[in-house]
């Protein structure tokens, strides 16, 4: 029988997330999805799920969950924390088996911002527009489009792939979390809307993540950037990773729940290989931006996926899911 997870005590912002909702940005619908896609994908593959399965995402402090109805195989990934099963510490990035009645307490993360509970079989809340990702402002995904509350029950899908207890992702293969953070970014598209010295300041200065940050974006405090002309442009498309600069001159780094269009000049875009780290920025963290070319960005993503795949003993094709829109799943090798 399939298990379920009961929320005994929620964290401040627990939501169900998968790799996002794609194909609706032309209608103004954000992609949403895990802020740290790499920890979601790695956790899913650890427990034998397709990379696109839905998991629980927690922010800074996680929930207390009780297993009901049947055994649940799961792995805690993302920001480093000290999870406890019935009060005893258990390792992160490792497949655990919890019996009905056992509780999992995530606690507070020591570094980074977002933790994931990836369960074998995935969290099977209903799909809306082909995704289970919660988008709170749009009132969709997860449980009725909201963050989790005490007493909520998360249905878990069939564990058909057969999760192996104790399977682990060694530290050298995990996303490397280190504050101060360095995020690689491609210049533009509106770098010419800024004074040239402001563009070099953006790529050399250090910014702090403001407390006024959420899944839509991180507000950054630091060197004030100056526009060459207007601080407003005719609205155009933006994506997670876009760094837009409103009239205040302080940049905003857009994340998973960001709007689809924006009217502020965009100085740079964080590359896909580093977007997981953007999702781990916590208020107060220091962050720097390092300029790379489009070609270097593609190589960086290929290297990162290759490293994850080696760590998991899988072919690269298996985790070609950072495409944020394709559902590629190949049987694990061996």
């Amino acid at each position, binding site marked *: 029988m399939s298990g379920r997870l009961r929320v005994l005590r929620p964290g401040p912002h627990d939501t169900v997330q998968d790799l996002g909702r*794609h*194909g*609706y*940005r*032309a*209608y*103004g*619908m*954000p992609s949403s999805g895990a802020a740290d896609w790499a920890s979601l994908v790695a956790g899913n593959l650890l427990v034998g799920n397709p990379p696109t399965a839905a998991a629980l995402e927690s922010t800074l402090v996680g929930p207390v969950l009780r297993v009901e109805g049947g055994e649940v195989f799961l792995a805690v990934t993302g920001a480093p924390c000290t999870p406890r099963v019935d009060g005893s510490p258990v390792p992160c990035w490792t497949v655990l088996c919890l019996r009905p009645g056992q509780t999992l307490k995530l606690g507070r993360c020591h570094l980074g911002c977002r933790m994931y509970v990836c369960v074998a079989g995935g969290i099977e809340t209903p799909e*809306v*527009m082909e995704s289970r990702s919660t988008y709170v*402002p*749009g*009132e*969709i995904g997860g449980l009725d*489009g909201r963050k989790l509350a005490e007493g909520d029950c998360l249905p878990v899908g069939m564990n058909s792939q057969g999760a192996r207890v104790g399977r682990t992702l060694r530290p050298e293969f995990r996303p490397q979390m280190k504050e101060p953070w360095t995020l690689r*970014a*491609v210049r*533009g*598209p*509106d770098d010419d809307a800024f004074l040239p010295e402001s563009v070099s300041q953006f790529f050399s200065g250090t910014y702090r993540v403001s407390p006024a940050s959420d899944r839509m974006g991180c507000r950054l405090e630091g060197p004030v950037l100056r526009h060459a002309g207007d601080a407003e442009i*005719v*609205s*155009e*498309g*933006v*994506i997670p*990773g*876009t760094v837009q600069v409103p009239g205040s001159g302080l940049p905003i780094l857009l994340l998973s729940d960001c*709007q*689809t*269009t924006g009217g502020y000049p*965009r100085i740079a*875009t*964080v*590359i*896909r290989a580093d977007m997981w780290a953007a999702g781990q920025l916590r208020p107060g963290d220091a962050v720097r931006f390092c300029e790379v070319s*489009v*070609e270097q*960005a*593609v190589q960086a*993503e*290929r290297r990162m*996926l290759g490293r994850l795949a080696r760590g998991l003993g899988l072919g690269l094709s298996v985790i*070609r899911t*950072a*495409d*944020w*829109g*394709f559902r590629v799943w190949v049987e694990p090798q061996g």
Partner: protein
Amino acid sequence: MKAEFRWLGEGALLVRLGEGIDPEVNARVRRLAAALDAAGIPGLVETVPTYRSVLVIFDPLITAPGALREAVEEVLERPDVGHSPGYREIVLPVAYGGEFGPDLELVCSHTGLAPDEVVAKHAGRVYLVYMLGFLPGFAYAGDLSPELEVPRLPQPRVRVPRGSVAIAGRQTGIYSLDSPGGWMLIGRTPVPTYRPRAAEPFLLRPGDRLRFLPISPEQYRKIEAQVRTGQYRLQVKEVSPE
């Protein structure tokens, strides 16, 4: 203007077709987006048409950025990208002023027009839906009569009720969800423009033509009830290409 290409990182290419807000430029934008959607480019995730550009989102590990750009250039040169498609004309009932449009008086003081003149001018035009954005299902439509041009509110509202019909600059929009907002609210429609669990979650799409029909508060309540029970029939006319 010749197409201008700019990168948003390695997985999105911005294709700009003109400057400013212009129905002709926007028509080319929508035709290019439709042609790209139909082109079968491997790894293309989605296209986002806006006023003057198309954002092409793709998987750079499936089609490399350089190859993607060449594929877009190839589509731009096709003659059918110049072909004019049909469109839909949609009539939205709107209750103006009072509790439905709390900024109507403010619009009057900005424009020097009487409330019924504002209503007549807003409801007296057919608008083009240039693009969607800001919120799921939020349509940016225009152009307003120059006499209705007003600035944004100096202090945005924390909560604008869904259905609110608002104006700013030469644009008019409909709040699809309760949300913060800085446009001036002149009325409200009882017809939902965002229904996430419906087969068609979004009422409006880029390229639609939009007309507003003034209704009384009583008619608003009646239509609201009809929408709830699924009995309301929206006026939609399909217009074929010329």
